[in-house]
């Protein structure tokens, strides 16, 4: 990956809160930064190709769309095969995040995390069963943690760059 320079970081800072809701948003960013829209668009296309911009788009509030059941499913699977399993689980259409994270034995034996989202407990139960079926005998234990309260939620805005 190419190293980010000051221009990339300036674009990131200018767009972290969102894209301007004006007919020519990239031109608007360019004006803010004293650059041309051409430069902004070229840089953003490059950052998207490199995966630095995961995507440009709309992020809905889960709850407002009726997805009130958001479970953090955690699984204990053998380390030797976790990458293969993680790739499979990550491809399920209802999984939003899938990671390998460390165990903290003895109280935390789980190393595979997958966030699932549903409109009912029944939806989520089916999703969990689908993951369990996929893991088969490699599933050596699991748990599901539901968020009971949002204690804090902010952007990453001021922390980066």
């Amino acid at each position: 990956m190419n190293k980010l320079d000051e221009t990339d970081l300036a674009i990131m800072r200018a767009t972290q809160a969102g894209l301007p809701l004006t007919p020519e948003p990239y031109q608007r960013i360019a004006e803010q930064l004293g650059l041309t829209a051409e430069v902004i668009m070229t840089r953003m296309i490059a950052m998207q190709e490199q995966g630095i911009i995961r995507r440009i788009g709309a992020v809905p509030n889960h709850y407002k769309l009726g997805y009130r059941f958001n479970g953090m499913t955690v699984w204990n699977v053998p380390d030797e095969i976790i990458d293969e399993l993680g790739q499979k689980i990550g491809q399920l259409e209802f999984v939003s995040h899938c990671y390998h994270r460390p165990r903290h034995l003895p109280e935390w034996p789980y190393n595979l995390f997958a966030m699932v989202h549903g409109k009912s407990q029944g939806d989520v139960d089916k999703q969990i069963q689908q993951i369990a079926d996929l893991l088969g005998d490699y599933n050596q234990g699991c748990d599901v943690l539901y968020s009971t309260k949002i204690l804090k939620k902010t952007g990453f805005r001021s922390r980066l760059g």
Partner: protein
Amino acid sequence: MDEIDRYIINTLQDGFPICDAPYQQVAVQLGLTERELIDRLQALLDNGTLTRFGPLYHAELMGGALTLAAVKAPPERFDEIVGIINAFPEVAHNYARNHALNMWFVIATETPEQIQHALTTIEQQAGLTVYNMVKIKEYFVGLKLEA
């Protein structure tokens, strides 16, 4: 939220063009005018249906650091622990969860060293073990929620 809003939300979760007049381009696809699309997006942001509209950056690739951590907050000290943890500007999200590890939070900093520093400081101030669930490998991030 009506059918048009749902259509906008579903379409714009897939991505947004980088070109001179992207709203115009998307509006044509949706059978709307540019003005209607922009006004509806503004309304969806204002009423909280959308939390964001714009580029989503990969924090670690930007040079920043992130981790997920958890603590077992004793019920009688729960509010106090919330106060301690939320006071850190590095703590971006914090959720109560139904488990012995009952508080899960995300720390975002500019460097990995700052993550460790924040974790250690939280341990000291809270007097609790902080379980660092640092990402070893990412398999997938992203989701389309049907509106």
